[in-house]
């Protein structure tokens, strides 16, 4: 608890990443960030070529989709909500869920958050602006709130028989809005931006979002991980703590050498965003696989 507050205080530090920028250049200091944005935007583009230009690559949206009329993909979290309300998916739906589950069990569940989810771009923008403006006020509430909300979204369908959360879910709301028509949904997105900016630092993705909470459960034993493999080179600049959307996950791996903790970031809420790799001018962090654990 104390560590979290400390990390979050550090999060308010300004002029982050100057060393990395000087040492690695703009491209080097933003490599993974750029790749993530390309991933997020190109996914949207693949969905949009159909409605915009009549070239159908992926149909549907993130809840369920069909790629090239061949590959079905379905969101296990949404399907689970439907299941809780007493509705089974079709065979195609089950196949889609299994493919997605396998994928995230390998690369880490919260890769969804940092590489796929469009809301991530909004909350990253809010966090960036928070740093630029030097905003220090932030409402403190538990990062575990998201697990309570996850529980809630799975209990509500049992009680009401309806997939209640999908009426509100800003993640599906934004994605569906972009692909099928926004309506008033943009207000919710602006709301999340303002919430993260003025009310709570990393409030949505880091504390509340039950989608992220669900996907974090798939991260437990994922193969792809970030490792502080060269942690002995760390010069305590704290930049990684500042840019990390889940600063709590770094500490054990980076500072746990004395206690014999592995340098592998083995926390389920690490989103594998690679921002720490970018921002570190000492090249402490790198992507690795679980089997190479030292």
């Amino acid at each position, binding site marked *: 608890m104390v560590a979290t507050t400390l990390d979050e205080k550090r999060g308010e530090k300004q002029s982050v990443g100057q060393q990395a920028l000087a040492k690695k250049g703009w491209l080097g200091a933003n490599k993974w960030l750029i790749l993530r944005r390309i991933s997020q935007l190109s996914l949207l583009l693949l969905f949009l070529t159909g409605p915009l230009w009549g070239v159908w690559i992926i149909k549907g949206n993130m809840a369920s989709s*069909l790629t090239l009329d061949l590959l079905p993909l379905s969101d296990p979290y949404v399907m689970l909500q*439907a299941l809780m309300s007493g*509705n089974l998916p079709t065979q195609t739906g089950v196949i889609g869920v299994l493919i997605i589950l396998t994928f995230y069990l390998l690369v880490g569940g919260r890769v969804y958050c940092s590489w796929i989810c469009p809301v991530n771009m909004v909350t990253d923008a809010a966090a960036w602006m928070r740093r630029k403006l030097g905003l220090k006020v932030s409402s403190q509430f538990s990062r575990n709130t998201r697990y309570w909300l996850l529980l*809630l979204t799975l209990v509500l369908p049992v009680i009401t*028989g309806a997939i209640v959360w999908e009426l*509100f879910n800003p993640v599906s709301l934004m994605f569906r809005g972009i692909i099928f028509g926004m*309506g008033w*949904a943009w207000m919710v997105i602006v709301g999340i931006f303002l919430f993260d900016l003025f009310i709570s630092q990393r409030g949505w993705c880091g504390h509340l979002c039950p989608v992220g909470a669900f996907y974090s459960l798939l991260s437990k034993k994922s193969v792809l991980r970030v490792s502080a493999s060269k942690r002995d080179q760390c010069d305590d600049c704290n930049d990684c703590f500042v840019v990390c959307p889940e600063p709590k996950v770094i500490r054990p791996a980076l500072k746990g050498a004395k206690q014999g903790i592995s340098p592998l970031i083995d926390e389920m809420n690490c989103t594998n965003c690679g921002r720490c790799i970018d921002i570190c001018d000492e090249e402490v962090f790198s992507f690795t696989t679980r089997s190479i654990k030292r």
Partner: protein
Amino acid sequence: MSNEKGRGDTVQNANKAILSRRKFMGETLKTACGAGLLGLGMGTYSRQAESTPAWVIRPPGALPEEQFSGACIRCGLCVRDCPYDMLKLAELGEQVPFGTPYFVARDKPCEMCEDIPCVVACPTHALDHDLTVIEDARMGLAVLIDQEECIAFQGLRCEVCFNVCPVQGDAITIEMSRNPRSGRHAMFIPVVHSDSCTGCGKCEKACILDEAAIKVLPMELAKGLVGEHYRFGWKQKKVAGESLVTPDVEHQYNLPEGVSYDYDTGKLSEAKSEETPYSSNPLDSLKRFQQQQEENK
């Protein structure tokens, strides 16, 4: 001295443990309560949000509304696979539950594709995959809802709804009745039959009025339901093959000799026997009269 210090540390640690336990409990309760309150709000709102307006028609094979809201994952695959582009995915702020597919008959009705691509595309059972014959779909029921404005009731020939109906002759028929205004013309009245109407909405789309007189309504709104205890005698009789109560006593008509009443046709019929009361020859009557007089003597 060192002992005392040690004891002090233990007490302090115990106090710390109690404090952190209290803090933990407090935090947990705070979060749980917050989540609970949020859930209450969301649950209540969803109950309201899921009462769809009557003009909203779901794609073919859609489950009844209360089940649909639990089965539809709002992926829009049905919308994408509709070759006529008539399905829409509700946007936030519309009166339709956010993200669910629907169409409005007056804008673009269902074209009733034989292969029903929207149902095939559905990754859940929100659209019933057992629906393979589109004529079995029941998206709603067309109702000639305004008999005051429908020009057929003015005695004018229209029948557009009848002519555009894809289940023509079954879902909508034209029934003729007397036109009381002119007294000598017929009115050609369109009549919808729920056993064939799929609720595709073509009739509503085609209705020539500024505001359609025939409209597709949700089934539960359009259909009445007779009490379960109700039995119609003639139907029961047909099923059983005979009357289920004491057989009707044949009515005694005061009919002329040789004339009988046919219950089935409701017509009088003359017996074909020789013993007709009156012969075609008038002289026979006269003879009989004389005979009777002689007998009386």
